[in-house]
């Protein structure tokens, strides 16, 4: 069990850092604008992240498995560790970074090290969603902003009543965003461990309560929740004011837009519904919640006037698409080499 926990620790660390940073994308604007208390945000966020991970985390994890099925626990540990180290190092260097992009780079790094082929069609699909993610969030935000502006103007709702509705909306949208974050990003945290999950099914009287993968995702979800409680407060309090000065209503729009984007790239139900209607479905891929938030904020900026757009932010996102996976892939390759040749661990079968 200790060995299992040791090998899972890199994923748990990644989960903790996701909780500390990415949870701020969901509730940061609400806490930053002082519309929702941190304690409430942390509780709702933790509960719904875990729910999203356990209930709807399979889709995006499955796509990661198709990119590269890391078939040894040592390899999975190293891939997750490489992603975590890359995220940490790039954050320290103040470079744009996303956990989703780091883990993809690490998996490709493992593929190269293990001599396994990388499915380029899956990889291109994943990279395509990285570009699509902020654009889609921006489009959602533009639409929602236009509708909300008209609605607020026409409804003649009192300033205080608008405040009350916005608070409620932020809490509900935050819960939805947290659920989507759990569903979409659990693949980053625990995706590489899926083929080598060390857990048995959790059964009660022969009835499977949680499958082995769900149990793995539950552990990952708990690590994210731990990150939310221990480290996300400061990030939440600054995220609202760092990027753009948001009003509570625009904060709500940002949360809904980014939550929607995370949801459509994670929901198997939506995928099936679109397929049944004969429509092309969105690929189930872990995407960056930070970039979804930036996309949504930029979308609002575009509606408010083109001069509001900070092009430097756009350049940093594009830079992150290239630098993060390449750095994580390189780190993963080097660490796998050491793991195999110095620590004599099996990293690939």
């Amino acid at each position, binding site marked *: 069990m200790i060995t299992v926990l040791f090998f899972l620790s890199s994923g748990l660390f990644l989960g903790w850092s996701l909780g500390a940073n990415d949870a701020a994308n969901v509730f940061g604007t609400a806490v930053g*604008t*002082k*519309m929702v*208390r941190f304690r409430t945000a942390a509780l709702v966020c933790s509960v719904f992240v875990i729910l999203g991970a356990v209930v709807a985390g399979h889709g995006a994890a499955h796509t990661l498995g198709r990119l590269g099925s890391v078939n040894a626990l040592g390899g999975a540990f190293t891939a997750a560790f490489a992603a975590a180290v890359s995220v940490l190092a790039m954050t320290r260097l103040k470079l744009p970074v996303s956990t989703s992009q780091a883990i993809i780079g690490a998996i490709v790094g493992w593929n190269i090290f293990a001599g396994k082929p990388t499915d380029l069609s899956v990889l291109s699909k994943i990279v395509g969603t990285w570009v699509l993610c902020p654009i889609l969030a921006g489009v959602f935000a533009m639409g929602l*902003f236009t509708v*909300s*502006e008209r609605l*607020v*103007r026409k409804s*003649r*709702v*009192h*300033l*205080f*009543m608008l*405040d*009350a509705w916005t*608070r*409620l909306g932020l809490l509900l949208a935050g819960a939805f965003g947290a659920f989507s974050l759990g569903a979409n990003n659990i693949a980053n945290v625990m995706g590489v461990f899926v083929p080598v999950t060390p857990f048995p099914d959790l059964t009660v009287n022969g009835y499977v309560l949680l499958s082995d993968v769900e149990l793995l995702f539950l552990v990952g979800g708990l690590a994210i929740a731990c990150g939310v409680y221990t480290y996300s407060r400061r990030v939440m309090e600054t995220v609202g004011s760092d990027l753009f000065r948001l*009003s*509570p*209503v*625009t904060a709500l729009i940002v949360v809904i837009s980014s939550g929607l984007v995370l949801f459509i790239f994670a929901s198997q139900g939506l995928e099936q519904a679109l397929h049944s209607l004969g429509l092309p479905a969105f690929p189930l891929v872990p995407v960056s919640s930070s970039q979804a938030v930036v996309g949504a904020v930029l979308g609002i900026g575009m509606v408010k006037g083109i001069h509001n757009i900070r092009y430097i932010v756009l350049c940093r996102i594009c830079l992150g698409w290239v630098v993060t996976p390449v750095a994580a892939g390189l780190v993963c390759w080097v660490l796998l080499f050491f793991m195999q040749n110095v620590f004599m661990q099996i990293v690939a079968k």
Partner: protein
Amino acid sequence: MKLFDKTRQLIEEIEVFYDTVSEAALVCKTGIEYFLDREPLRLSERVQQMNDLENQADSLRRSIEHKLYSRMLIPDVRGDVLSLLEASDNVIDWAKKLLTALDIEQPQIPDALIKSFRELTGASYNAMDEMVRATRSYFYETEMVNDHINKVYFYEHEADKLEDQIKRKAFRGEEFTELSRRVQMRYFAERLANLSDQAEAVANRLAIAAIKRSI
């Protein structure tokens, strides 16, 4: 829901506060008219009424301010709302001071100045009334704020002109021989015009606050 019940209660208090400001403006106007009609007893009644309204407005303002802070409501525009409430409360304070001064000093307004004083009272009252309308619009429909603000500016400008006119008549006319009475006329003209200046101060704050309120 508890949140919505408390919000409705607060909205009610704000409404009552601005009803009080509106009523105080009306009481001030009628009080001055009674004074100009030389009905000192009815003026005294208005002074008493104004004292009650001022106390009521003060306690409402304090209660609203306390609730806004303790419940952490409207964090983005809380400062604007508080400064609007305080500036609106100042209008009542000035109106009360004016009526009290008239009641105590009972200055003798010569017939030649009565009409100008009546017009000045009307202009100041209109400025205060439009100020209340502008503030109510701020809470419900910000695009209407500017319409009312422009009217406040108009009446304030009118009041300034009438104030000048009274001062000129008081100092250049033949109605008074004593300097003290000329100065007393100037004092009351300034006090009366000051009500529209206070309304203008609220309007200035509103103009900025309305821009900030756009989502």
